[in-house]
């Protein structure tokens, strides 16, 4: 097939001005068109040729399709290794799509009012066809998405895929992480049950926690930033209709729109930054059948060079080591998507999304627990609302965002903990990270903290010196030590990130399994006092 040859149009014979010169009546032409309607419509719809026979057809099918062209036409074999990405990014995006679709179904019934909200969610569970199942899927996909986003970030970090030129995309990723948590948090209130009401009450109290500082400085009366934040969030001084309206708006419009926009940028940057990261010698890295011999050498250079800043990785290289994205990359992505869907559908089949009693401001839940991914945070908040709820998370988010800008080392990216010594640092940091957080929490549980020894101690001291800030200090000190000893910013970063992960893990486990009424420590819920 020649490149200049126009695609064959099967409907061409019915063209009145056809070269064959056959005279056809208007009616015949009409009937002919009617007969070929399917083919004509298909050709109008599919811009590339059909059927797809050659590699070139495959490339065109990707390139000329709006939905597919975010992919490059060819995908590097390295990127398709399951053990490299574990499909986490695709699964995170997949759960976002599932959430969008199920969310729209839920919106058909849901009314964001008091008391309609609770009643419509009840109706969803009890009478709407499969309403309960759709709601379950929404709930589980939300959990899955948070998990997948965290895991995806972990993968990107340990494969050092944030390195230039991908720093900005890492930043977008951090933004998406925050949006994901925001989406989850806002969705939590909507059923207007006890769980929702008290979790959001805690959340809004965290928003008001800068009062710890302003109170200590005696300036709350003049500059009440905490109160202002809470009022902005709730649209009032307590969780009520104002809060429900705001949360609904955030949950169904503002945050999803922002997430879609950032996702677009995120994907576009993956493409522009050279696809998924891979080591320079990836093409020869042992995939059977890959010889490293170029499939063909580009016979033409691109005229866009003057417009494109920097080097785009596709230029100056042949497509060696690559395969056509259609079907290989799409099959892999679809498989990851379906894996996610299978997990979510399975979980939804066996475990229903909870729906507790109607929200009752007079009956506090005890313990009132946030969703699992916020329980590490809630554990910190139990030490100090401001330090645990705003200061530490703020530092963590900023710290995460800064990683690629502070670690400028160039090196192998695209493999897990590329150098042998990084693995050593990882295990060392894991042991230190787990030991120090477990140690500090165990100490606090056993002996209490400043307030239990000196009841009259000013809150400001506790805000600054508490188990949460102590853990943070230990982690920072340890990472600086590693940085100093190894002289490598990457290794310092590995130490800090690993510490962060172990802290997150342990605090979350403590919050989920070991905290009971009044946030007291219990080895199992069976020991909780009966209320």
């Amino acid at each position, binding site marked *: 097939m020649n490149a200049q040859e126009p695609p064959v149009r099967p409907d061409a014979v019915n063209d009145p001005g056809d070269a064959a010169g056959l005279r056809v009546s208007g009616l015949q032409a009409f009937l002919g068109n009617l007969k070929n309607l399917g083919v004509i419509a298909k050709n109008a719809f599919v811009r590339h040729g059909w059927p797809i026979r050659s590699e070139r057809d495959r490339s065109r099918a990707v390139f000329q399709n709006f939905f597919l062209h975010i992919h490059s036409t060819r995908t590097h074999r390295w990127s398709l290794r*399951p053990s490299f990405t574990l499909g986490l990014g695709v699964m995170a995006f997949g759960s976002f799509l599932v959430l969008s679709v199920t969310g729209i179904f839920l919106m058909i019934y849901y009314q964001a009012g008091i008391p309609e909200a609770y009643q419509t969610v*009840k109706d969803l569970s*009890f009478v709407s066809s499969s309403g309960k199942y759709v709601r379950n899927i929404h709930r589980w996909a939300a959990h899955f998405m948070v998990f997948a986003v965290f895991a995806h970030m972990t993968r990107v970090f340990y494969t050092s895929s944030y390195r230039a030129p991908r720093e900005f995309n890492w930043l977008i990723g951090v933004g998406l992480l925050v949006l994901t948590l925001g989406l989850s948090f806002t969705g939590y209130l909507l059923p207007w049950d006890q769980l929702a009401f008290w979790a959001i009450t805690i959340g809004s109290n965290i928003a008001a926690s800068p009062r710890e500082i302003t109170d200590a400085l005696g300036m709350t009366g003049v500059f009440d930033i905490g109160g202002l934040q809470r009022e902005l969030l709730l649209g009032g001084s307590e969780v009520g209709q104002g809060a429900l309206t705001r949360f609904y708006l955030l949950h169904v419009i503002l945050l999803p729109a922002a997430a879609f926009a950032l996702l677009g940028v995120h994907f576009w940057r993956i493409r522009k930054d050279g696809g998924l990261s891979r080591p320079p010698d990836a093409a020869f890295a042992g995939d059977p059948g890959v010889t490293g011999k170029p499939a063909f050498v580009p016979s033409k250079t691109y005229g866009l060079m003057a417009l494109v800043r920097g080097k785009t990785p596709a230029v100056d290289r042949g497509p060696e080591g690559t395969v056509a994205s259609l079907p290989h990359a799409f099959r892999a992505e679809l498989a990851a998507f379906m894996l996610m869907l299978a997990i979510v559908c*399975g979980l*939804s*089949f066996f475990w229903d999304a909870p729906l507790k*009693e109607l929200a*009752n401001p007079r009956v506090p839940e005890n313990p009132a627990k946030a969703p699992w991914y916020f329980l590490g945070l809630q554990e910190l908040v139990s030490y100090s609302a401001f330090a645990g709820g705003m200061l530490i998370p703020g530092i963590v988010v900023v710290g995460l965002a800064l990683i690629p800008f502070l670690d400028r080392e160039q090196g192998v990216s695209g493999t897990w903990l590329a150098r042998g010594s990084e693995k050593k640092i990882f295990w060392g940091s894991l042991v230190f990270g787990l030991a120090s957080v477990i140690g500090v929490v165990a100490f606090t549980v056993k002996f209490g903290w400043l307030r239990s020894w000196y009841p009259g101690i000013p809150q400001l001291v506790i805000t600054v010196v508490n188990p949460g800030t102590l853990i943070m200090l230990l982690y920072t000190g340890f990472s600086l030590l590693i940085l100093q000893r190894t002289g490598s910013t990457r290794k310092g970063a590995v130490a800090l990130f690993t510490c962060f992960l172990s802290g997150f893990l342990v605090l979350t486990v403590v919050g989920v399994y070991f905290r009971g009424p009044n946030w007291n420590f219990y080895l199992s819920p069976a020991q909780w*006092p009966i209320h």
Partner: protein
Amino acid sequence: MRTRFYSILLLAASLVTLAFVASSILEDSYFREWRRHQRNYAKLTEGKTPFEPGLKQYYLPHLNRIDRCTTCHTGLLNPEMGSAAQPHTAHPGNYLSFHQPQEFGCTVCHAGQGLATNSAEAHATNSGKHVFWDEPVYSKEFTQASCRACHSSAWAGEHGAPLLGKGAKLFVDLGCNSCHKTGGVGGSRGPALDGQGSQPRAHFPMAHLDPPHTVERWQVEHLQDPQKIVPGSAMRQYGLSGDDAKALAIYLFSLRDLPVPEQMTHSRDTLDRDKPDGKHVYQRNCSGCHGEGLKDREDKIMGWRIPAVRNPEMLAAAGQDFLRKSIEQGREGTPMESWSSESSGLSKAEIQALVAYLYSNAAKEKPKPWTFSGTTDPEEGKALFEDSCKQCHGAEGRGGPKGPSLLVRTLAEMPDSFLAITVRDGRPGTSMNSFKEEAEFTDQEIADVVAFVRELQEKVLSVRGN
């Protein structure tokens, strides 16, 4: 590339997804509990009764509820189902001929979660699995509590709700309002009981109740032994039998906020506020602490001696004005609180009727007047007080488990003669002896003691009697 790996993964994951989605749709459309019940019902009736399968509901906007109970309780209105097993049983009695389900629904009487379409969540009785609904379905007898939403308890007691009627009567006879307010009337030593029947389960501490932890059982057991269920409770044991406790608990359940439109109601429990019956007012608001009022009584929980307010001699000596003041102002420093309309909701007319009722028990003959007019010596009085009065009236006359407080404003404002006569003659029927007869006090000694008590009163209350 790993074509094979991804293909197999894709196939497997798709099949699993398909299987779960199909199962859930199947479950939704064929295997839901209510569908099984409806199929059984069709078998029971052998198709003789026309019945259209599907979700059933009573939509009751005027009661702000939707009841889907008849989705499973299929035979509710079918007289042939009188002896069928649940959930197909016909409704017993002729209740439904007066309360058409289209207008009343089910949960307005039976409680439970009308929205639910499965047995566990509809009944929400919390046996075994925890279900999240604040109003579990009532057990059979407790359903009587609902009658009071539209009927007075007296009427309902005679028309099919005997336990409610009995409970309402017990509530008055035991004088529950002595400590608890209902409708704004009553004491405030205990919590107000309005809305008690619609308190969520979380309101009741279940730690000391043996399972099952239902509010119905909590109420019954708490009424029988308050300290067992709520350690440290300030509520007295009234020695209630199991049946009485249940009747009273049913009445407590009837105290709930149920927005029933006015036109649906039949009769209401009302108090006659303008022409009150003094005896009734006493029974309702005073007898909880004072009992019959003829004998004083030590209350262990209050740690106080509760005076005999219907003691004929006391009444004769004190007079109506003293009674009215004591009731209206209460007695500071003692458990007796103010019963004025501002504090405890008793109207002027009710207090008047109450005073008249109490005073009707006063001794017919007035006590011998007090005529002593010599000089008094409080120091002498102090010695006598330490000797003879302190044991019961406490140091400085603050009162206690054995005798009432003397440092009470109403008492301080009474004339000396009232105190002196009481010391002289004692108070028959109480532990206050006649000191003239038993201890051979002279009039001088009595006057000295009174003078000392006056000093105590003046020191603490800054009020001087005459």
